[in-house]
């Protein structure tokens, strides 16, 4: 009895819902089209990594070669070099650049002059709004051996003017310092927001217990923003292998390839400059899979130990 009543009323509701949903699905069309055409279609295009792809034959006509392209990559000296550089450059950012916005936020939070605080905030965000091209241009020109101010200052102390951009010993430092400069101020926003969210009663209680400033920061502020730190860390690790290619392309040159050539830049040179499509797709796919494993792994570890995860 009840079911038949339900059925009777269900019909008009259902048709009304369908009409309601229909307009929602129509709205979704551009988004879905974009993701199908510009994200998932090329994702499918990754299968040329297992082919000897020819642009004339297309994906359907090209010959399958299994894992040959991957084997080729593993057997070249570039495999070790690019993997090592990708890992080292990213580790360098993780160790030196990632903590900077946290420290910056902790110190800025202790500045009590409101005006100073807001001016420091605004000015320190500035590098974030300048394009990578311009930032790299500034770096290259300030380090230029013929007219850059930094080599000139170094000359005053050592007597020689170094050409830092072609010296493999300095590439990693230059890259890391540039990253810190760009991201320290703006990166602190999210931590400052997290600090604001900490219950002020905790500090009051700590003061009653006689805790000084450093103990308060250590025992209240840092644990309070730990979930934010972990979230940012996982996101950072997830983007580790992909995001830096356009920056490195601007900074490196053949003289520094041995320390600066990463998987991403190697793919760029082989695929786009030399048109070795299948091979460089395989190299890129290798990179993406490691990246996915990194983000999955760090998320799993983080969930286990800190109960923070991004999904």
């Amino acid at each position, binding site marked *: 009895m009840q079911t038949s009543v339900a059925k009777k009323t269900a019909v008009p509701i259902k048709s009304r819902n369908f009409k309601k*949903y229909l307009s929602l699905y129509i709205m979704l069309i551009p988004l879905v089209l974009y993701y199908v055409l510009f*994200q998932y279609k090329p994702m499918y295009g990754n299968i040329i990594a297992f082919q000897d792809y020819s642009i004339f034959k297309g994906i359907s006509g090209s010959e399958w070669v299994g894992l040959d392209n991957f084997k080729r990559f593993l057997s070249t000296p570039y495999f070790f070099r690019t993997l090592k550089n990708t890992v080292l450059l990213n580790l360098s950012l993780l160790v030196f650049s990632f903590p900077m916005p946290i420290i910056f936020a902790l110190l800025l939070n202790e500045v009590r002059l409101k005006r100073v605080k807001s001016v420091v905030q605004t000015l320190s965000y500035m590098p974030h*709004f300048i394009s990578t091209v311009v930032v790299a241009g500034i770096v290259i020109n300030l380090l230029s051996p013929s007219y850059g101010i930094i080599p000139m200052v170094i000359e005053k102390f050592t007597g020689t003017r170094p050409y830092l951009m072609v010296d493999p010993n300095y590439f990693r430092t230059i890259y890391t310092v540039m990253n810190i400069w760009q991201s320290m101020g*703006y990166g602190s926003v999210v931590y400052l927001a997290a600090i604001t969210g900490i219950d002020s009663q905790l500090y009051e209680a700590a003061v009653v217990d006689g805790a000084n400033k450093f103990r308060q920061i250590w025992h209240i502020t840092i644990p309070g923003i730990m979930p934010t730190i972990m979230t940012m860390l996982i996101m950072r690790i997830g983007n580790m292998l992909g995001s830096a290619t356009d920056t490195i392309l601007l900074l490196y040159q053949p003289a520094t390839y041995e320390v600066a050539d990463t998987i991403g830049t190697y793919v760029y040179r082989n695929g*786009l400059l030399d048109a070795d499509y299948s091979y460089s797709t395989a190299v890129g796919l290798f990179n993406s899979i490691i990246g996915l494993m990194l983000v999955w792994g760090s998320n799993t570890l983080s969930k286990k130990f800190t109960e923070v995860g991004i999904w």
Partner: protein
Amino acid sequence: MKETKGEKIFYFVNTLFMILLTLGIIYPIVYVISASFSSREAILTGKVVLFPVDANLEAYKYVFADRQIWISYLNSFFYTIVGTATAMAVTILGAYPLSKSVLPGKKIITFAIVLTMWFGAGTIPMYLNYRDLGLLNTRAAIILGSACSAYNFILLRNFFTAIPRSLEEAADIDGAGQWTILSKIYLPLSLPSIATISLFYAVARWNSYFWEMIILSDDSLMPLQVVIKKLIVDLKGVAAKSDSVDLSMLKYSEETVVYASIVVSAVPMLVLYPFIQKYFVKGVMVGAVKE
């Protein structure tokens, strides 16, 4: 609260340190601006430290006399404005339905979008895709190729999800369609968020160079960043053009022109960002809240 002597010292030293650090952060930009107004000799001999030396506008005259700079400036405005408008339309129309918990298929579509944040298609397949679609060397590739960012999509969807259901239920009973609910209820309520996300898109558009450099080949289509890259990173352009001229006779030089180009390309953002930074801060704060 009473302050101990140690705390007073801490506050003083800390504030002083933060001020000095900030001066250090802006110094490279101040230097570049000063150098762009200085003479070649002053730069080469290291006389420019903080303020311009032998102040002149020759480098800027040279930069603005270059037609390519103007063309690429206009192109950058075009890509930024049309690109942002397109991306906002796609993002708003996508985020609205996917903020409805009742919509069948919502979960799988959202997952498919979020996945692209962690697993991209790869540079070469993307490039071949542009070629297969016949989009190489077209403006459409620049506009459509980045018509949505997963991060911005999630941000807006979260904003929309936070809007109370009760507001639209009244409209729903009145028989208003979804388009009306979106435009009359959701959009007016989320104007600040929409401004934030538009600015995210616009700044990213203005500053991007990688795909533009790969996809475009005609000078007439180039955005500013690609032109500036050739000029200040590859250091090509100035020297080539002035081969026939004795550089020492001229007020401008490769060095000053490079610095002036840096300033010219960074100026729109440097002027705008103090006004838009509060939106960025807000966006980051909402984004930090887990979905």
